[in-house]
C-alpha cells in the first residue's frame, strides 16, 4: 500500500516535471509567482495603500478613520511650522551625518583597498562587517550610557578640560554618524578596489604627485561609490526615531510618525510620505551621479 502510494506520488512528481520540461516561460512563471506575489501585491500594494491612507482623515469625535479623500493631512504638514521645522531638522541631520561619514570612511576604505596587505584587508573587512551587523538598538543604547553625565566620555574628556556633549542634537548627529559609518566604508572600499592599480601607476609614472593622483584620478573614479554609500547614510537617518528618542529630546520625522500611528493613522501615513519623497529625489540625483553601478 505504502509503496504504491509512494509510486503514485513519484509519478505525480514526474508528471509535474514533464510539464515544466522545456517550457521556459512556465518555469519562470512558477519561480516568480511566490516572490512577485509577496513583493508586488504584498509590499508595493501596502505602499500604495499607505499613499491612499494619507488622503483619508480621522473623525475628531469618534476617532475612527474616515475613508473620504481629502488634502487635510498634506495641508497640515505644509502649513504648520512645527512640521516644517521637524522635516528640515531631519533632512539637515541626514546631510550632516552623510558628510561626516564620507570624511571618516574615505581614508579607512582607501587604506583597506590600496595600502593594506591581503591579510590585513581580510581582517579589516570582517572588522567592519561585524559591528555593522551587531544589534542596532544595543549600539544606540551603548551611546546613551557613554554620553551620560557620569559615563565614559565624561571620564575620558574631563581631564583634558572637555566634557560629554550630553543628550541633544549633537548627540544624535554623533550617534547616527557612528551607526551608519560601516554602510559608507564598504561601498567606497568596493569602488576603490575596482580602480586598477595600473591606472594609479600610470599617473605616478607621468610625474603626478600622490596628491595630484588622488585628486585627479582616484577621487573622480571613487566619487560614484561615495554617492552610493550616501544613499544608505541618508535613508537610514531619515527613518530613524529610536536614536532621537534615546539620546535627545528633539523630534524627528520618525518620532512624529510613531506618535501618530495609534490615534491618527492617516496623518502618520502622510508623514511617512515625506521620507519616501525625499528618498526618491535623492535617488534621482544619485543616479545622475552614476551611483547605481556601485550599489
Amino acid at each position, binding site marked *: 500500500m505504502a509503496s504504491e502510494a509512494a509510486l503514485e506520488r513519484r509519478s505525480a512528481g514526474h508528471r*509535474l*516535471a514533464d510539464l515544466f*520540461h522545456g517550457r521556459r*516561460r512556465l518555469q*519562470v512563471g512558477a519561480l*516568480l509567482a*511566490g*516572490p*512577485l506575489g*509577496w*513583493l508586488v501585491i504584498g*509590499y*508595493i*500594494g*501596502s*505602499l500604495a*495603500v499607505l499613499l491612499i491612507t494619507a488622503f483619508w482623515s480621522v473623525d475628531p469625535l469618534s476617532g475612527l478613520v474616515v475613508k473620504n479623500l481629502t488634502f487635510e493631512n498634506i495641508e497640515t504638514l505644509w502649513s504648520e511650522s512645527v512640521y516644517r521645522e521637524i522635516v528640515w531638522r531631519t533632512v539637515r541631520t541626514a546631510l550632516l551625518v552623510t558628510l561626516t561619514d564620507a570624511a571618516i*570612511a574615505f*581614508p*579607512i576604505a582607501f*587604506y*583597506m583597498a*590600496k*595600502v593594506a596587505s591581503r591579510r590585513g584587508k581580510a581582517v579589516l573587512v*570582517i*572588522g567592519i*562587517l561585524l*559591528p555593522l*551587523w*551587531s*544589534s542596532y*538598538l*544595543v549600539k544606540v543604547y551603548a551611546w546613551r*550610557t*557613554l554620553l551620560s553625565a*557620569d559615563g*565614559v566620555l565624561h*571620564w575620558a574628556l574631563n581631564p583634558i578640560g572637555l566634557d560629554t556633549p550630553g543628550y541633544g542634537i549633537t548627540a544624535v548627529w554623533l550617534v547616527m554618524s*557612528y551607526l551608519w*559609518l560601516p554602510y559608507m566604508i*564598504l561601498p567606497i*572600499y*568596493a569602488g576603490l578596489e575596482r580602480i586598477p592599480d595600473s591606472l594609479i601607476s600610470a599617473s*605616478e609614472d607621468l610625474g603626478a604627485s600622490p596628491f595630484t593622483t588622488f585628486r585627479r584620478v582616484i577621487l573622480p573614479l571613487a566619487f560614484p561609490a561615495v554617492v552610493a554609500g550616501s544613499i*544608505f547614510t541618508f535613508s537610514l537617518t*531619515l*527613518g*530613524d526615531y*529610536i536614536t532621537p528618542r534615546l539620546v535627545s529630546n528633539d523630534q524627528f520625522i*520618525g518620532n512624529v*510618525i*510613531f506618535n501618530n*500611528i495609534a490615534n491618527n*493613522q492617516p496623518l*502618520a501615513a502622510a508623514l*511617512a510620505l515625506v*521620507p*519616501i519623497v525625499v528618498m526618491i529625489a535623492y535617488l534621482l540625483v544619485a543616479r545622475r551621479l552614476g551611483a547605481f553601478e*556601485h*550599489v
Partner: protein
Amino acid sequence: MRLSRNARALLRIAVAVGLAFIYVPLVAIVLYAFNASRILAWPPPGWTLHWFSSAFDNAAARDAFLTSVKAGLAATAIALVLGSLASLAVARHRFFGRETISFLVLLPIALPGIVTGVAISNTFTQVLGLPLSLLTVIVGHATFCIVVVYNNAVARLRRLSSSFEEASADLGAHTWQTFRYVTLPGMRSALIAGGLLAFALSFDEIIVTNFTIGAGEETLPIWIFSNLFRPHELPTVNAVAVIVILISIIPVYLAHRLGGEAAAGRSGGGGVETEAAAVP
C-alpha cells in the same frame, strides 16, 4: 600605490582612530554588563557575573527571547524560499523586467524601516482588518530578509556554470531531479549563509517590529527598549544586550566563513560577485 612614509603613517592613524570609534561603544557595553554596581558610573567599582544570571532568571526576557527566535526562524524560512526562487529565475532565465527584480527585492530595505513598518501595519489594520500579532512581525521581517538570501544565491548561481545543469538534463534527469541533485547542492552553502544573515537581521530588528507587533507581545529588542527607561532594570539590560550582540554577530561570522561572497553588505550588494563586501 606609492606613498610617502608620512602619508602611510597618517593613513594608519586614521584607520586606528576609525576602528576605535567603531569598537569603543561595543567594548564599553560589554564591560558594563560585568559591572558590580547597580549604577552605571564609569569606571565600574568591581566586576560580577550576577547580571547574566538575573537575565536568565527574568521570565519576561526569556519569553521575549523565544518570541525573537520564533519570528527569526519563520521569517528566515519564508525569505529562504522566496529569495532562492527569485534568484533561480533571475540567474537562470531571461525575461522581460528581469533587471527590476533586484531593485524590487532591495526596496524594502532601501526605504527607511519606518516606511515599511507603517505600510505593513496600515495594510493589516485598515485594509485586511486583522489585528497586529507575531504573524504581522514575521511578514514584515520576511519582506526585508528576502534580499540577503537573494543576493547570496544570485552571486553563487552566477559563479556556478549552468553547463552542469545542461549536462544533467542531457543525461536524462528531469527538471526536479536536476534541481535536487545538481543545482541545490551547488547553492547549499550560499543558502545557509543567506539564512544565517537573514536570521541575524530579523533577530535584532526593532523599527519594523515596533510598528507590527501586537499588544502584549515582545521580541528581545522590544524588551530591551521598554526596560531602558527603568533604572533598576539597566544592569540586566546590559547583560541581555551582550547576549543580543553575540547572537547577531556569530551567524554573520559563520556566514562570512561559509560564503566568501556571502559577506555582502547588510542589505544589498545587488548580487555583486567579486566585491561582495559591497553595500548595504
